[in-house]
């Protein structure tokens, strides 16, 4: 009986398929008779003048392809950086049907609040399979699950693009070798050795200071220390201090090592005192508002920079602005926080994602256009890099270089399209100026130890029980104390200052917050 049914079904599909084919096309042929304009809204700055002309050349070419493949054209709709979040949310709330595709992000562009409020269209599996088949196939089930709110998919994640935003220290490897670290810096203790050497040989190395920190790295350094000394996985986006999170052993039990692990924080305070006394940073570091450390690093005026991997990929590469590499021995290493404990969390896959406006008049076509932009090599190159020969060229290794006569102020089309919601490593053209041997080496190490960011869907409800203000208080207290602790500017013993901080955090309600977040966690993850 079952077999018979199956046979009938099979036959039916074949017949259906045949009739569809007769009309010309695949099994589920989409009606694309009407030529439509798909508007893509995203954050970025609209080019002007000659840059606009170059941009339009690209747009015209892109539209020719899109018209041919799905009878649609793409209009770009920029949200300027001025007060961008307000303007972005207002435009989504307008719901006038003028916008189709919306570049979004769960961590910096209110993706979930907008999904919650009904600004984004719910994307059914059927829709995705039919209109964005390549995207559907390339994203794993686990990743689709991370794009769900209340059981429905709202986002198409940029999950096949390597970008590492885990923080650490960028340092001069050539100088580290001179400091006796033949293998480079791989721990906070190594970093101390390195700083000891560069501060002692400041004049010989030609630097003005080891690290011209502007006094705002307090929380980042503390998080780095915690990452390096525990299995803590912080929840992003609750507060800048990222006080709360799980551990790699138990992702869904909320802890705060910076609050509970006294000895760890005392050790941190002691080491930072040592750094301060060595003169790693300026004595007035906490009021140092004029620092240009990153640019100073490029020209060899400082010995270290604290930022994330992606910044390092720029700083470690030979480029016109990085004049340190005029010296052939110069080399930049990266000590990433968590290296000692292999504690590295990948960037959330919804750090960049595409949504469809709930008011879109042509959601199907919008999905088709997105599928092409993300997966079709021709479209992908156009929207990401511009026209070959004008905005980019390829060298003999197939790497991306700037063509002759290239003017970055007008020809950089990729800078105008902000395609950060569907980049695809399979189609990326590698920038030839980047130091790929070093970069890929590090990426491989990351891939071995990383875990996916687990909390992409968690939107804490901070309205209940005054949790929001308690979070703010804790953030404030932690930040204030870390200014003293992370820059070694406290008086008295390390034990005392840590104890004082813990008492103040308790007063600020850290335990209440933990309990409330745990409750919300359980509601979300213990279903």
């Amino acid at each position, binding site marked *: 009986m079952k077999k018979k049914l199956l046979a009938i079904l099979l036959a039916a599909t074949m017949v259906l398929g045949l009739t569809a084919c007769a009309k010309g096309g695949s099994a589920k042929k989409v009606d694309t008779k009407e030529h439509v304009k798909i508007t893509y809204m995203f954050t970025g700055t609209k080019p002007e*003048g000659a*840059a606009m002309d170059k941009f339009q050349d690209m747009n015209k070419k892109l539209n020719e392809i899109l018209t041919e493949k799905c009878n649609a054209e793409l209009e770009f709709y920029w949200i*300027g*950086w*001025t007060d961008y979040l307000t303007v972005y949310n207002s435009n989504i709330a*307008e719901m006038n049907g003028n916008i189709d595709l919306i570049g979004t992000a769960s961590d910096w562009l209110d993706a979930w609040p907008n999904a919650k409020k009904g600004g984004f269209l719910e994307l059914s599996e059927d829709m995705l399979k039919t209109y964005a088949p390549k995207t559907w196939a390339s994203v794993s089930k686990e990743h689709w699950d991370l794009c769900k709110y209340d059981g429905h998919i709202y986002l198409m994640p940029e999950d096949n693009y390597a970008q590492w935003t885990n923080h650490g220290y960028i340092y001069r490897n050539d100088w580290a070798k001179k400091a006796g670290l033949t293998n480079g810096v791989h721990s906070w203790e190594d970093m101390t050795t390195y700083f000891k050497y560069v501060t002692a040989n400041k004049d010989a190395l030609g630097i003005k200071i080891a690290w011209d920190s502007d006094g705002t790295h307090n929380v980042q350094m503390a998080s780095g220390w915690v990452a390096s000394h525990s299995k803590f996985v912080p929840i992003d986006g609750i507060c800048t201090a990222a006080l709360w999170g799980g551990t790699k052993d138990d992702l869904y039990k909320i802890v705060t090592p910076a609050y509970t692990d006294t000895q760890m924080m005392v050790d941190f305070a002691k080491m930072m005192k040592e750094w301060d006394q060595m003169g790693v940073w300026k004595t007035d570091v906490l009021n140092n508002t004029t620092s240009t450390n990153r640019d100073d690093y490029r020209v060899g005026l400082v010995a270290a920079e604290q930022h994330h991997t992606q*910044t390092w990929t720029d700083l470690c590469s030979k480029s016109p602005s990085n004049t340190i590499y005029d010296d052939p021995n110069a080399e930049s290493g990266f000590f990433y926080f968590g290296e000692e404990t292999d504690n590295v969390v990948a960037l959330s896959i919804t750090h960049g994602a595409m949504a469809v406006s709930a008011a879109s008049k042509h959601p199907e076509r919008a999905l088709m256009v997105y599928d092409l932009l993300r997966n079709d090599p021709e479209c992908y190159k156009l929207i990401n890099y511009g026209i070959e020969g004008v905005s980019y060229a390829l060298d003999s290794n197939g790497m991306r270089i700037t063509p002759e006569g290239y003017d970055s102020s007008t020809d950089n089309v990729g*800078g105008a399209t902000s395609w950060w919601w569907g980049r695809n490593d399979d189609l990326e053209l590698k*920038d030839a100026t980047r130091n790929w041997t070093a970069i890929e080496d590090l990426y491989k190490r990351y891939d071995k130890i990383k875990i996916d960011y687990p909390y992409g869907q968690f939107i804490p409800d901070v309205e209940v029980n005054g949790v929001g203000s308690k979070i703010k208080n804790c953030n404030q207290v932690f930040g204030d104390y870390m200014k003293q602790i992370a820059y070694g500017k406290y008086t008295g013993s390390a034990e005392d200052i840590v104890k004082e901080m813990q008492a103040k955090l308790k007063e600020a309600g850290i335990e209440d917050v933990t309990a409330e977040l745990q409750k919300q966690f359980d509601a979300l993850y213990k279903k």
Partner: protein
Amino acid sequence: MAKTKDLDMMSSSAKVKLGASDMIVRGFGYFITTFYALACIFPFLIILGSSFSSEKSFNANGVQLIPKEFSTQAYEMVIKGGLIWKSYILTILLTLIGTGIGLSIIAMTGYALQRKDFPFRNPISFYIYFTSLFSAGLAPYYLLMTQTYKLKDSYLAVLLPLLMSPWLIILMKNFVKSIPHEITESGKIDGAGDMKIFTALILPMLKPALATIGLFLALGYWNEWYQTSLFLSSRVDVKPLQYMLYETVNMTDALKNTVAGQYVVITDIPSNTVKMATAMLATGPIVLLYPFVQKYFISGITVGAVKG
């Protein structure tokens, strides 16, 4: 005539009395004022100097009063886009039109509100005052402007909201109050209509107030970026000047630090000297407005004096 005589007497009597201690006080005063003035203008000069510096020298040596390597490259970069001149014209037009219309309706409102024979003047005053206490918030405002008034992508969305503000109306009302009611009455007795009284009698006496409030309005329009950021989308090419400037700075900050730093190659970010040059161009003409209206500020002090 009497006025100048008074002034002469004042200055001559001061001259007579000027002793050693006065000289010291005065010298000290001049010194402090000069020093303070220099301190105020110094940052401006630094921006000016740096805007003429080459990018390389700027990055190596930082801001400079006198550029070590002179270059007009930054200005060429800013002007090359071509849009800045259109923005200039737009901003100047908005400022002129906005200030003109704004001043006239604010002056009329202020005058009408203080006329004792104007019915419902207290409820209306309160209504105006009330809006300065409560507002519905951003989202309703945005939807009102875009969906009810359909002002999205229209320059009216920038022009209209800035025309009047409760506090400027109250300011004007108080200015007008200082003009004695008898002047209006005398006009009436001579058979002038309300409009005639307003234009021929009241307005000339309001010059200081017009200058003050006009300056507020003009500055408001000149510095306007907020309504632009909300209501003029990327479909509008020419945006007011300050928005363009603000956007340059914000883009740099956003790309460098907060949002997408990881994506951006350093050459995409506008260079420091370009920012300086833009700042210079954006400050430009409005600075010239101050000395022009200054004399009215000073005469504003004596406006209360009515002689028979």
